[in-house]
């Protein structure tokens, strides 16, 4: 069975997409969890500011999720464009 170059590229792109999203999901997942844990601590210390803390947590998580979004973009590019 002869394997052509183009096919190897395709196969590599699929594996690469999987790894990009899979490994890329680890960091944001842990980081956002840390944010949530600290937000819980902050609410435990100062429950009156719950609304403000929730919003701060969401903004922080959104920023730390951006690397996850980059992985998603790269994975989708590998799947559909390459």
């Amino acid at each position: 069975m002869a394997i052509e170059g183009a096919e190897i590229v395709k196969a590599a792109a699929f594996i690469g997409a999987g790894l990009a999203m899979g490994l890329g999901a680890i960091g944001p997942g842990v980081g956002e969890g840390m944010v949530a844990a600290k937000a819980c601590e902050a609410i435990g210390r100062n429950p009156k500011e719950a609304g403000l803390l929730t919003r701060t947590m969401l903004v922080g998580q959104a920023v730390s999720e951006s690397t996850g979004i980059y992985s998603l973009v790269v994975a989708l590019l590998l799947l559909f464009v390459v």
Partner: protein
Amino acid sequence: MGELGRLHQLIIPVFGHNITINLEVMVMTWIVFALLIVLGLFASHKRNILPRPIQALGELIVSLLYDLTEDALGEELAQKYAPLICALFMFLLLSNWLGIIPHLEEPTKDLNTTLGLGVMGFLIAHYAGIKSKGFKAYIKEYFQPIFFMMPLNLIGELAKIVSISFRLFGNIMGGSIIILVVSYLTYNLALPPFLYGFFGLFVGTIQAFVFTMLTVVYISVQVK
């Protein structure tokens, strides 16, 4: 095991395109609607200062969800959005619980249901955002912190729809697959009732709450 992933579908050809309707999901959704309407009628029928149990239950749910919306959105907007949030939560709760009745299935097991609700939440949140901030300020937010971040911000917003709807779908579908497989492996002895309790009632309630909370949060992030 063969029934895994099979659906009853109605396919209508219209001008060369096929419109596919998942009959089962549609009927199940109607059942949930009917249950909700009946429940609402009973809860609001012959209202009294001294509430009957069903009226008390209805008041409890509504006031809990109202407080929740008010905490996140403030009093003014809560008046507007609380009915939506109540309806969303009750619909999701009953949908997730429907699977514990034999021969009925959760409508939320179908991606179309959850995706539809996710898109609805997204549109409402952005409508609320445009209305409170004005169109210019709304567009400006996409170009933060620097202008070339626009495509990534846009994808980040759209990814919210994906994450909210796939979360509900994945949890409910995963739970029902586990129940199906375990009942197959143990010949329907012992475990399934416990699993129905865990995945149907417990996870179903949590996920309905999470979906509702996230919709509220998305609205509040857009508004403020």
